[in-house]
C-alpha cells in the first residue's frame, strides 16, 4: 500500500470522526449553519483527498452526500433526523469503504447503491447542483487572495430594478469583505433625482474565488456600472506585513490621486493623508478607504505568518511510542549517572550529572506532552453509541459530555474505549427507563447520561452518571448470595454491595445481551481499569441514578514514585496516592493490642504491614515508617522500613509470567541496576481487607 494511501487512511478516519461528531450535534441543533458547514467540509475534503489518493469509490460516494449538504447549506433542504441518520449510515459505510483497501471485509455494493439512491432522492435538481458543488470545492481548496473592487453604478441603476445591497451581500458571501460606500458624488437634495444612484463602493474582499467569480456577481449590471477588480494580495506569498503599499501608492493605483500630485505631497513634511484632505485633492472617505486596504492587507499577512508558525505535522503514533520508550531508557540511565556521580567526590562529574538530570526531566515532560490527546475524541464515539442504542431499545437518551478538552496519554485513551463502551451500554440497558416509565415517575421522558472528565493531580477523574433507576441493593445482594460471593448473613455497607457488581461471575446468563455487553460482565470493566493502573467506584440512589467514578493515571509510561525499602528490598509507591509519612514505634504497636490501626491527629487510620504481606525475612527496625495513601477517599497506611525519597519511575511490564501478580502493577530499574517492584496500593488494601473479613466470618 502506498504511503499516499496510508496518509489518506489516517486523514479519512479523522474526517469521518469529525463528520460523525458534527452530525450528532446537528441533530440537536439542525439550524446551526456552522455545523452544516462542518459536515459539508468533512464530506468535501474526504471526496477531494479520496480522489487524490486513488480512492475513486470513496470520492464518488462522498459526492452524493456532499451534493445533498450543499442544498442544506443553501437553505433548500432541512437537516432533519432522517437526513442525519442517512448521513451517519453513509459515514459508517465510508469507513468500511476506506478500510476495505486495507484488508477489511469488502463493503456490500448493494448497500452502496441503496445509500446513493437515498441521497439522490433528496436531489430534485441534482444536475444543476453539480456545477455549483465543484465551484464550491475549488473555492475551499484554493489559496485566499485579497481583491480591491470599485463598483460604480450608472445613475440609472435603481430604474433597472437593481438593489445594490443584494450585490454587496452576494459579494460578502464569497469571503471576508470590507465595504465602504463612497458618497462624494451624491448631490444636495434639491439637485438630486432620488431615483438615480450616485453612491459608489470600494470593497476589499479576501476570498478563495478568482476574479471571474467576483465579476459574475455583477453579471447582470456589468453594462450599467463601472467595475474595477484588482488583486492586491495573494495568500500563498509569504510577504512581510510592512511590505504592503504606502497610502499614496494605493490612492494612485485606485485612480483617486494623480502621480504628480503624489510626488508633490511626498516632498512635504505633513502627515500625508491629512495634507491631501486639507488641500482638497482627495476626500476623507477615499483616504479612509485606502487606509482600510493598507491595514487589511497588513493584518492578513501578519495572520498568515502566525498560521505558518503554528503549523503542525503528522507523525505516526508508533514513532512517538518509540520516542517515549527511548526517553524511558534515558531516564533510567540518568538515574544511574546521578547515583554514580553522587558516590564519587568529583564536583565536575556531579555538575554534569545534574545538568543531564535537568535536561532529561524536561525531555520527559515534553515527550509525554506530545502523546497527550484530548479525551473528546472518544467522547464523540459514545454520542453515536447512545443515539443508536437508545433507538434500538426504544429509549430516548441524550449524552452530555463535559471536560472533553481534558488530555490523557494516547495509550490510556486507546485502552479506555472498551470499558467505557461497556459502562454506557449498562447505563442505557439497565439504568435508563423507557420514556413512558420515566414520565409515570415524574421524570423527563428523555434520559440523560453525563460523561465528564477532569484532571485530579496526576490522574484523570472520569464519571459516568445516569438519571435512571439506580442499582437495586437487595437484588444485587440476593444475587451475590446466590452466586456464593457473600454469605447470606453478611453485613455489607452500600459501597460493598455496589462493588459486588464488579465481582467475577456476578453477571448471569440472563443479563448477557447485545446491549449489556457482548456476554462480558462488569468484572471485565474493572480488570480493564485495573490494567490501566486506575480504579473504579460505583454509587447509586434508587430512582435517581447511578454514578461510576473512574480514576486513571495521565500516562502509563513514567510516573513520579516514592522509593521505599523493606528488608533491603526496594519498592516504588505511586507518589500521586501518597499524602504523608509518619513514624511507627514499637511502643505504638504494642499499645494497639495487635490491631493494625494508627492514630493520626485523632483520626484512626488502618495500616498494612508490607513486610508481612510479602513474607520478607528479618527483624523490623525500632522505628518504622508509615506511608499514608489516599485510596478513593479512604486513608490507608503502608508500613515500610525506610522512605528513600522521590523517584522518576519508568514503568516496565512484568511480562506474561507475572502479569497477574496481586499487589504489584509493574517494575522499574533503579540507578544501581536493581529492579524495584511498583506496588498496586488499592489492590493491596483490598487484599488485606478481604483477608480480615474472611477471618471475621
Amino acid at each position, binding site marked *: 500500500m502506498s504511503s499516499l494511501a496510508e496518509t489518506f487512511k489516517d486523514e479519512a478516519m479523522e474526517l469521518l470522526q469529525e463528520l460523525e461528531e458534527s452530525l450528532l450535534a446537528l441533530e440537536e441543533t439542525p439550524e446551526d449553519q456552522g455545523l452544516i458547514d462542518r459536515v459539508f467540509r468533512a464530506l468535501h475534503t474526504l471526496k477531494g483527498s479520496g480522489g487524490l489518493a486513488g480512492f475513486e469509490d470513496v470520492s464518488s460516494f462522498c459526492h452524493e452526500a456532499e451534493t445533498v449538504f450543499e442544498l442544506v447549506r443553501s437553505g433548500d433542504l432541512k437537516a432533519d433526523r432522517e437526513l442525519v441518520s442517512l448521513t451517519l449510515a453513509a459515514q459508517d459505510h465510508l469507513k468500511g469503504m476506506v478500510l476495505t483497501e486495507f484488508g477489511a471485509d469488502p463493503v456490500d455494493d448493494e448497500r452502496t447503491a441503496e445509500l446513493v439512491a437515498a441521497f439522490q432522492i433528496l436531489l430534485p435538481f441534482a444536475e444543476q447542483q453539480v456545477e455549483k458543488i465543484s465551484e464550491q470545492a475549488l473555492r475551499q481548496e484554493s489559496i485566499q487572495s485579497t481583491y480591491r473592487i470599485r463598483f460604480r453604478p450608472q445613475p440609472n441603476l*435603481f430604474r433597472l430594478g437593481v*438593489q*445594490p*445591497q443584494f450585490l*454587496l*451581500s452576494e459579494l*460578502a458571501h464569497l469571503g471576508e469583505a*470590507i*465595504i*465602504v*460606500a463612497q*458618497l*462624494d458624488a*451624491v*448631490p*444636495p*437634495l*434639491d*439637485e*438630486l433625482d*432620488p*431615483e438615480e*444612484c*450616485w*453612491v459608489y*463602493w*470600494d*470593497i476589499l474582499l479576501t476570498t478563495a474565488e478568482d476574479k471571474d467569480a467576483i465579476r459574475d456577481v455583477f453579471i447582470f449590471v456589468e453594462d450599467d456600472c463601472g467595475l474595477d477588480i484588482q488583486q492586491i494580495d495573494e495568500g500563498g506569498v509569504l510577504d512581510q506585513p510592512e511590505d504592503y503599499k504606502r497610502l499614496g501608492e494605493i490612492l494612485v493605483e485606485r485612480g483617486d490621486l494623480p502621480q504628480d500630485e503624489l510626488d508633490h505631497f511626498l516632498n512635504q513634511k505633513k502627515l500625508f493623508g491629512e495634507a491631501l484632505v486639507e488641500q482638497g485633492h482627495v*476626500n*476623507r*472617505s477615499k483616504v*479612509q478607504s485606502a487606509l482600510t486596504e493598507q491595514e487589511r492587507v497588513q493584518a492578513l499577512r501578519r495572520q498568515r505568518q502566525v498560521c505558518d508558525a503554528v503549523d503542525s505535522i503528522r507523525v505516526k503514533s508508533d514513532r512517538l511510542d518509540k520516542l517515549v520508550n527511548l526517553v524511558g531508557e534515558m531516564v533510567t540511565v540518568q538515574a544511574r549517572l546521578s547515583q554514580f556521580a553522587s558516590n564519587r567526590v568529583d564536583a565536575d562529574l556531579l555538575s554534569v550529572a545534574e545538568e543531564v538530570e535537568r535536561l532529561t526531566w524536561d525531555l520527559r515532560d515534553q515527550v509525554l506532552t506530545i502523546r497527550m490527546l484530548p479525551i473528546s475524541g472518544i467522547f464523540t464515539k459514545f454520542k453515536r453509541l447512545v443515539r443508536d442504542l437508545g433507538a434500538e431499545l426504544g429509549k430516548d437518551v441524550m449524552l452530555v459530555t463535559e471536560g472533553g478538552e481534558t488530555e490523557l496519554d494516547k495509550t490510556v485513551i486507546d485502552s479506555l474505549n472498551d470499558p467505557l463502551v461497556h459502562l454506557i451500554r449498562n447505563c442505557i440497558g439497565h439504568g435508563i427507563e423507557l420514556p413512558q416509565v420515566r414520565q409515570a415517575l415524574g421524570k423527563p421522558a428523555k434520559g440523560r447520561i453525563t460523561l465528564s472528565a477532569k484532571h485530579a493531580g496526576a490522574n484523570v477523574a472520569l464519571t459516568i452518571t445516569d438519571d435512571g433507576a439506580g442499582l437495586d441493593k437487595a437484588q444485587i445482594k440476593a444475587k451475590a448470595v446466590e452466586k456464593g460471593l457473600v454469605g447470606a448473613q453478611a453485613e455489607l455497607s452500600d459501597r460493598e454491595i455496589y462493588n459486588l457488581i464488579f465481582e467475577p461471575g456476578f453477571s448471569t446468563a440472563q443479563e448477557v445481551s447485545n446491549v449489556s455487553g457482548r456476554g462480558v460482565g462488569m468484572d471485565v470493566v474493572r480488570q480493564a481499569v485495573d490494567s490501566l493502573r486506575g480504579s473504579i467506584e460505583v454509587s447509586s440512589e434508587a430512582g435517581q441514578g447511578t454514578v461510576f467514578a473512574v480514576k486513571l493515571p495521565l500516562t502509563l509510561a513514567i510516573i513520579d514514585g516514592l522509593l521505599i525499602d523493606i528488608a533491603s528490598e526496594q519498592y516504588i509507591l505511586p507518589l500521586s496516592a501518597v499524602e504523608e509519612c509518619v513514624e511507627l514505634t514499637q511502643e505504638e504497636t504494642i499499645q494497639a493490642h495487635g490491631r493494625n490501626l494508627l492514630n493520626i491527629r485523632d483520626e484512626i487510620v488502618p495500616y498494612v504491614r508490607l513486610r508481612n504481606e510479602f513474607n520478607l525475612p528479618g527483624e523490623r527496625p525500632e522505628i518504622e515508617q508509615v506511608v499514608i495513601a489516599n485510596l478513593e477517599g479512604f486513608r490507608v497506611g503502608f508500613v515500610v522500613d525506610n522512605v528513600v525519597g522521590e523517584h522518576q519511575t519508568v514503568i516496565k511490564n512484568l511480562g506474561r509470567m507475572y502479569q497477574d501478580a496481586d499487589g504489584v502493577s509493574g517494575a522499574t530499574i533503579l540507578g544501581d541496576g536493581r529492579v524495584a517492584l511498583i506496588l498496586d496500593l488499592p489492590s493491596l488494601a483490598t487484599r488485606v481487607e478481604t483477608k480480615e473479613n474472611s477471618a471475621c466470618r
Partner: protein
Amino acid sequence: MTKWAFDPEQKSGILAIEGGLTIRSVGDLKQRLVEAFSEAEMVTVDVSTAEAVDVAGIQLLCACHRYSVGRGKEMSLYVGQNAVFESFIDETGFARNFVCSHGKDSHCLWAEQK
C-alpha cells in the same frame, strides 16, 4: 408615511418616517424634506420606526444632509433602536468614523452610526 412636528419657537422640527425609506417612497420623501427645511432651521429625521430601507433611501438622507449644510441649517438623524436600519448601513458600507467630505466641519450623518 411621514409625520411632521414643528416647534415655531425653536424653529426646529421632527420628521418621522414611519413606513419605508426605499426607492418606492424617495420621491415623496424628498418633497417632505424640502418642505421641512423651508420651515425649520433644525430638522431631526426620525427613522426609528422605519420598517424598510434601501440604498436610495440612505442616499436621500445623505443628499438632505448636504442640502442642509449648504443652507447653513442643521440636520440630525434619530435611529433609536432600529436594528434594520443599523445593520443596513453597516452592511452596505455607509457607517464610518470620520467627518463628511461635503459637510465641511460638520459630522457625517453616518459617523454616529458606526
